[in-house]
């Protein structure tokens, strides 16, 4: 049997490399998947431009952050980007509404099939993608400032006397806090307010919603505002936690879609749960468990390899596999969204 302290060390190690990162990544995916699920539920198409809308919103946030930094405005221990977030949201809302007016509305009035919308959104994706690269370039951008760590591994080690350290980045706490606030606000809005209920009604039964006098243009308008706000928030949090790169944001589309579908597309609660399911699966199967088992197993059984199921290069394969399995076994997802 391993000693008690070894078990503690193993738990700390696991928390540091799996639990804490997966929770913050899950929260970011959840916010992204919420946007996808809302477009699907209310506007009735799979929005492939969502990842790039995240990138655009974040670009706006970064530019405003740099502006603030240049004129010496800061947010104390918190990242300046949080101050810039409302401006970024405004930018993303403006672009979303512009795309809706110039592109999506045309197909909506024609009552086009969902598959046409998907192709159209792919076009919008390429355009947004290009706009982002024009503005900020394809490279990596870091825009995190303020306090980086709530506690560092070394501080944790000194404090507990364990040989494993646990780091808690301020961005991880921020991500979770902001995600909880956003999700709570969104659920309150959808469940309790008149406009929110009208949006659910529109998503549930469009014709009957029209018969009840619900204004479809207003529902679409509010949906884009919420989706753009969620996308920008998710993108900013992801960028603060890791870094901003247009290509990475485009690639986030797959795990976000997987999250929305696993949870049940069209179901907001499903998107949140799906986000965490995908994040945990990705992190758990790509983590190398060698050290973890060294703590738990007797020396004679010590693993020789890395004990890693999949290399991190393959992390997108994880969401892809989950996606395929869910579509085969339970196409409506965990929370019984619309079957697709």
């Amino acid at each position, binding site marked *: 049997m391993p000693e008690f302290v070894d078990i503690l060390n193993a738990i700390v190690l696991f928390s540091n490399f799996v639990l804490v990162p997966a929770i913050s990544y899950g929260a970011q995916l959840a916010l992204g998947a919420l946007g996808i699920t809302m477009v699907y539920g209310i506007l009735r198409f799979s929005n492939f431009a969502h990842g790039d809308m995240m990138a655009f919103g974040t670009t706006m946030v970064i530019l405003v952050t740099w502006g603030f930094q240049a004129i010496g405005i800061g947010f104390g221990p918190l990242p300046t980007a949080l101050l810039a977030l409302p401006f970024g949201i405004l930018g993303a809302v403006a672009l979303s509404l512009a795309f809706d007016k110039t592109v999506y509305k045309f197909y909506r009035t024609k009552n086009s099939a969902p598959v046409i919308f998907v192709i159209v959104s792919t076009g919008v994706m390429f355009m947004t993608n290009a706009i982002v690269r024009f503005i900020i370039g394809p490279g990596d951008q870091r825009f995190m400032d303020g306090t980086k760590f709530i506690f560092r591994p070394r501080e944790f080690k000194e404090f507990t006397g364990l040989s494993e350290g646990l780091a808690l980045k301020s961005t991880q706490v921020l991500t979770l806090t902001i995600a909880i606030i956003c999700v709570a606000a969104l659920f309150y809005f959808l469940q309790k307010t008149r406009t929110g209920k009208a949006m659910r*009604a529109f998503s*549930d*039964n469009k*014709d009957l919603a029209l018969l*009840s*006098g619900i204004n479809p243009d207003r529902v679409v308008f509010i949906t884009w505002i919420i989706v753009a706000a969620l996308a920008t928030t998710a993108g900013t949090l992801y960028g603060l936690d890791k870094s901003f790169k247009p290509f990475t944001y485009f690639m986030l589309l797959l795990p976000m879609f997987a999250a929305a579908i696993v949870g049940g597309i069209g179901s907001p609660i499903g998107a949140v749960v799906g986000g965490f399911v995908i994040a945990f699966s990705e992190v758990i199967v790509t983590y190398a468990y060698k050290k973890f088992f060294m703590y738990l197993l007797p020396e004679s059984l010590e693993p020789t390899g890395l004990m890693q199921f999949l290399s991190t290069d393959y992390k997108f394969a994880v969401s892809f596999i989950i996606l395929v399995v869910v579509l085969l076994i339970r196409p409506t997802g965990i929370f019984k969204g619309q079957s697709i």
Partner: protein
Amino acid sequence: MSYLVADQLRGGYGGADILNGCSLSVDKGEIAVIVGPNGAGKSTAMKALLGMLKLREGSVTLGGQDITHMSPQDRVGQGIAFVPQTHNVFGGMTVEENLEMGAFLRTDNFSETMEQVYELFPILKQKRRQNAGELSGGQRQQVAVGRAMMTQPSVLMLDEPTAGVSPIVMDELFDRILEVKKQGIAVLMVEQNAAQALNIADKGYVLVTGTNKHTGSGDELLANPVVRRTFLGG
């Protein structure tokens, strides 16, 4: 002149006309029933009254006002409520939320109307926190009628309200519709269960290929041997 009047309607979904000069009217506190064989244009006539069909000819007036070119949404605002045959509730929302959505356009306090609906359909009060999609067919129809009643309509249009419900539930629904009529609402419905529907009707229209074949009070039509033989099965 009656409250809601459709005069000489002609039109269809493009291609051949489905309505060939059919006329309907219903007054407040009256039940008018449209019956007829399949494909006679019963539901189409109702859609025309609601503004969901492009008319080539004819006019629709509501309380003397010409609404022929009004959009369906505006007609709802003018007091026409419609209960579609299928997909007539918000399945993922609770009974109470369904009723709230019915009152979406209203800015006044609608809790009194909701009480009236619950009085009309007591079972709905019991199930008001349940999702409408989980209810039985008959209860769902009650939600659908209740939702329409929340707009405080002057005209209630029902497209086959008793389709797919058991005879007992059908009788109960018709009883409720009589109650609705007593509130001074004009009720217009399309029915497959023609004999039972004509029993409660003040006015009946037998539609064949988009034109009025027989018109009369419910009892007259029930007594008419031609109508009996051709449409009521003996």
